[in-house]
């Protein structure tokens, strides 16, 4: 919901108050370093909140546990988009105007990126966006960074996996809700590119009492596998009915599916055994279990109380890992630049992640901080793998195909490299 704010005179009292403390992005040199997580905590996309939490709290723990940035603790500032760009703009504007210690931004997401990126860029706020839109593949915003592949990449990786499994025809089943649609164009394009028959395309209106009609259509099309993304309950209804009315086939979820809010309803609907047998997801990130992953999982467990249950869903969760890497990277850049001012440390973001001769490779914030303190140059390799930012500040990574045993971390069953994806995408 947009909550417009009216005649400035009415709020100016409050604003003036805030203004006293306010002198722009992250230049306050004492007190905690503010890192903003801008996401939908309410509204249609409130489901984002649990994902952002699975990023923020472990990363925050890792940084503060190692003594914070430049000796200052890091504090998390949650800004709510209310799932609405207009609210996002007001909320973000208010935050920038009223808190002097904002040093970096995690987000914005797809919905509010178009509205917020220009604002944040003009305020020299380095932002690690989670919006997968192809629009940011070649952005010219100096302060915009992205360490997740664009939406099409994931779709194309899924198509490649389907090809590798030898499926002759596939069907797509996507929710029409926000966040479930982003990968669809990539999937469709990818499936065409690898030369698999697209037998049926179903778009599901979320939270309908039933999807019988769609199920019947899909059964009639007889696909060898189903590529899907939707919210958990919708998926449960659909696949539950698919099991009732016909038989299951392999199900490939996008990187948007892995989370317990998806798994639990699905297990409930098609049975845990079937779920383990048929469901795979192609997720962003590096399958290699590195020190970084260990550090991430440790941080997850350390902050378990703040995360949505069960915590196992976040361990090895590539989505969370990428976000976690984002915050660690930003923090290390600040350390390397000896400044929390975006104007200063922005250029260090690529530097602390790029490989290079004589660079010390680090997998945790603590190690990186120590190395920098010892005067070394560093390359941070994250839990989701190396971050190799191109000149557009984009870092793809390879993607992993995972299966999800109940109450246990995900298991990697295959990998699609960035090279393979780009070869396909052209």
């Amino acid at each position, binding site marked *: 919901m947009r909550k417009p704010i009216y005649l400035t005179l009415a709020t100016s009292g409050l604003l003036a108050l805030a203004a006293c403390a306010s002198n722009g992005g992250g230049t306050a040199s004492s007190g905690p370093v503010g890192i903003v997580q801008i996401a939908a905590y309410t509204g249609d996309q409130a489901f984002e909140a649990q994902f952002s939490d699975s990023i923020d709290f472990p990363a925050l723990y890792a940084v503060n546990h190692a003594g914070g940035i430049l000796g200052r603790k890091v504090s998390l500032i949650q800004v709510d988009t209310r799932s609405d760009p207009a609210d996002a703009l007001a909320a973000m504007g208010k935050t920038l105007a009223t808190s002097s210690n904002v040093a970096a931004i995690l987000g914005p997401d797809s919905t509010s990126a178009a509205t917020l990126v220009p604002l944040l860029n003009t305020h020299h706020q380095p932002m690690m966006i989670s919006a997968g839109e192809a629009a940011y593949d070649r952005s010219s915003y100096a302060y915009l960074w992205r360490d997740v592949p664009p939406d099409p990449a994931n779709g194309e990786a899924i198509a490649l996996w389907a090809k590798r499994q030898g499926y002759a025809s596939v069907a797509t089943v996507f929710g029409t809700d926000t966040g479930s649609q982003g990968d669809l164009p990539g999937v469709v394009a990818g499936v065409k590119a690898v030369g698999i028959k697209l037998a049926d395309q179903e778009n*599901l209106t979320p939270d309908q009492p039933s999807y*019988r009609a769609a199920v019947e259509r899909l059964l009639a099309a007889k696909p060898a596998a189903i590529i899907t993304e939707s*919210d958990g309950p919708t998926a449960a209804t659909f696949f539950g009915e698919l099991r009732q009315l016909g038989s299951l086939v392999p199900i490939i979820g996008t990187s948007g599916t892995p989370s317990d809010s998806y798994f639990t309803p699905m297990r409930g609907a098609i049975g845990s055994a079937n779920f383990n047998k048929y469901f795979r997801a192609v997720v962003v990130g590096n399958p290699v279990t590195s020190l970084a992953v260990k550090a991430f999982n440790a941080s997850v467990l350390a902050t378990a109380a703040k995360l949505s249950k069960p915590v196992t869903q976040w361990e090895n969760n590539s989505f969370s890992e990428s976000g976690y890497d984002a915050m660690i990277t930003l923090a290390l850049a600040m350390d390397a630049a000896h400044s929390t001012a975006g104007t200063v440390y922005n250029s260090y973001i690529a530097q602390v992640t790029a490989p290079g001769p004589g660079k010390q490779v680090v997998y945790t914030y603590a190690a990186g901080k120590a190395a920098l303190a010892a005067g070394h140059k560093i390359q941070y390799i994250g839990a989701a793998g190396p971050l190799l930012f191109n000149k557009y500040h984009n870092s793809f990574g390879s993607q992993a195909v995972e299966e999800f045993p109940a109450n246990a971390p995900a298991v990697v069953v295959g990998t699609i490299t960035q090279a393979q994806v780009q070869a396909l995408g052209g």
Partner: protein
Amino acid sequence: MLIIQAIGFGVITAALIAIGAMGFTVQFGLTNVLNISYAGAMTVGAFATFIAEELHLALVLGVLLAPLAAAAVTLVLGRTLFAFYARRGAGLFEMVMVTLAVNLILQFGIDAASHEQIYRFAFPQGASLHVGPFTFTVTQLALVAVAAGVFASLEFLLRRTRLGKALRAMAVEPRLARTCGIPTAKIVNVVWLLSGALAGLAGLAYVINALTIDASVGTNFLPLVLAAAILGKAGSTRGAVLAALALGVVTEEVAAVGGAAYSTVAGFGILAIVLLTRPAALAGQATGKVEVTV
């Protein structure tokens, strides 16, 4: 083939709508309060059962909780708030605004209490049965049975019992009824309870089928319920059921042919067509001579 099966799906959807529409229309026909907060009552009912489930209470008990909770809420609202505004001479439209405000409060109150999360509602669906070309789960058939049962008992209540006669008399001529010594206050109470209970059932039925629950289920379900009640003509349970059937079947058919996205469009289309072709169904002085009797 699909077309035929869609009829089966339509009947189930219709059953959901019918339960809600009957509860709405009985109350509306008698009190002339177009009660938007009916949506809130549906949500309350659904959540009552949901919580019972979470607490692992007996299924029967949980199912009973839905109508009970919703009926209680509705009665209290009707007797206190709505009665208050009616006494202050609120007109038909003013009452709509009141019930709407109440719905905002209910919906977002529950929203706040439920941490704005969407919860999974695991209600046993039972085995799936094949009846001719149709496929139903036991629970779905149960829902249809419930709808039919509600309809039958309402018809009996309204046409065969003294209460029903008094009720209908009151709906036509409230003042006269009062002077004839009909205990109008008591009857209004009964109607609030009845309508509330059905709201609870409807909300429960909706989430049973949707497998998911959040604070906005009532408001999401309201358009169909309201449409059915309005198309069926205020106060007519038969009308409500027929309208529900029409809405259910048509929307499912459209979904079968054109995809779920278009079913909502279809529902809207039906409403528009009826309004254009027989506005008499809704005729009446725009300024409203009908009086609120709460």
